[in-house]
């Protein structure tokens, strides 16, 4: 540090000038403030943002998932629980009878969507408001995940 900086007083004054500049600018140009008024205005995240999961459907509306357990195996938080069942269509081996995700345990790492061989699980919903008033409500099932129109909170 130079002597001028070590005397400190000048640097303090410089700091004070910087903060008062911010204050005055924000008072007189309140519209330019970068704050987002959250509940009224929602921030938009990048397309790569990992939001709440959804399950993809086939053309006939059944889940695309083949219950291969790749995602639940890859999941570091161990929060995907799948019960597999025989599929009526002989060309498809299995389908998930139950597909539950514990959103409270999920760390939104995206490993499940990486692991899926048939692009059945995605995190591209853009939903980041994952709130509920009871623990059980964070335990979401197949119906919920397939219904990708359910935007917003749980």
């Amino acid at each position, binding site marked *: 540090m130079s002597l001028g900086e070590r005397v400190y*007083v000048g640097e*303090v004054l410089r*700091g004070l000038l910087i*903060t*008062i500049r*911010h*204050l005055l600018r*924000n008072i007189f140009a309140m519209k330019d*403030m970068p704050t987002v*008024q959250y509940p009224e205005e929602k921030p938009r995240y990048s397309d790569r943002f990992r939001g709440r999961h959804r399950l993809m459907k086939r053309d006939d509306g059944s889940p695309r998932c083949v219950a291969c357990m790749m995602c639940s195996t890859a999941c570091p938080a161990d929060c995907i629980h799948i019960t597999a069942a025989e599929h009526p269509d002989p060309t498809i081996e299995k389908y998930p009878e139950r597909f539950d995700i514990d959103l409270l345990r999920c760390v939104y790492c995206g490993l499940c969507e990486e692991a899926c061989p048939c692009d059945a699980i995605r995190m591209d919903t853009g939903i980041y408001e994952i709130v509920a008033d009871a623990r059980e409500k964070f335990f979401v099932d197949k119906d919920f995940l397939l219904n990708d129109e359910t935007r917003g909170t749980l």
Partner: protein
Amino acid sequence: MMELVVATLLKIVFMLVLVIGLIPVLVWAERKGSAFIQDRTGPNRASVAGIRLGGLVHPIADVVKLLFKEDVRPDGVHGFLYALAPFVVFFVALVTYAVIPFGDYLEVGGRQIPLVVADLNVGILYVFAIASLGTYGIVMAGWASNNKYAFLGALRSTSQMISYEISMGLAIMGLLLIFQSLRLTEIVSGQGDLIWGFLPKWGVVIQPLGALLFITAIFAETNRTPFDLPEGESEIVAGYHLEYSSMKFALFFMAEYANMVIGAALIATLFFGGWNIPWLSRQTITAGADTLLPLVLGLQAVVSGVIAWLFFRRAVRERGKFGDARDREPGLLGGFFAVVGALSLASFALAPWRVGPAGASLFATLLQVGAFVGKVVFFCWFFVWVRWTLPRFRYDQLMSLGWKVMLPLALANLVITAVGVAIV
């Protein structure tokens, strides 16, 4: 005798209203100021019938919340001292005001009432003596809480207070040498003079180093950033008031702000001329009241008019922006300022320039009290401003600043001033 009692009571009430009234305003200024400095909007959600007043409703909500909060008392505290500590701290923060002159005098029926609650001839010593008592409250709180973090916070507070009290005392010695008095009223009226006919003889002009040291020491004494080590949430949780909740916590909190007001009042009184308005002595004001009074009223009308216009413009521009009660807010505020402006204009009808000597004297008193309050408010804001500019010191930095920098500087300042006073 009766008059004396009434006058004193009125003065006490004025001071209490000033100090306690400033606390919620300061809390608001701190939250809103910090927000604006950091490019945030700050508190703006609490509302009364949809009117938010830019966050001014929050202090009311805070008070209601603190009053109704559960008062948790942990096991193992020392019951008596635990309960006593917040009162000691708050009491100490309030009684110091007694010796601070907030105006020259008020003329009532030919008698001059000095505007200071107690004009002690050892005024400044009283301030220091009482201020250092605050440490007892903090130590009591820390020890009685039976919590190691609280205890550490209290210890840090004590050592900090003791270290900076010395520099604080020495920093004003030069001033005392120049004004030859410990009486705050005399120090203030002494600052009304001019040096070489144009420079106000304020403490900061004749004792710049002393002023700098004193302001720094006051920051340490009031536990404000960068000297807020008694709290330090990152290393000792919340410090000495860790185990306190609801109103007991609120007392500590209010005491901090009350201390800030007294700190600001002391800085203004000792180094920035107290109630003096530079180049406008009392004689000048009373003699020129006929022109000054309409000037002040006119200025008030113009300023309120401009503010009202700004609000009305916003009301028109942002009509229906929110679609709820908030839309009425700019209009209401604009209306308020318009009424203030209109009242100041209407008072011209009373021909204020024909006030006569009694009115002129009252006008001078009001102006001077206004100057004092304005200075106090400015320095209160200064505390907030510095808090959101500087980071907290490390403990060893704090100690070496106190003992290795401030103490020698204060001594040097004293020696130089003493030599100067002896020569002149």
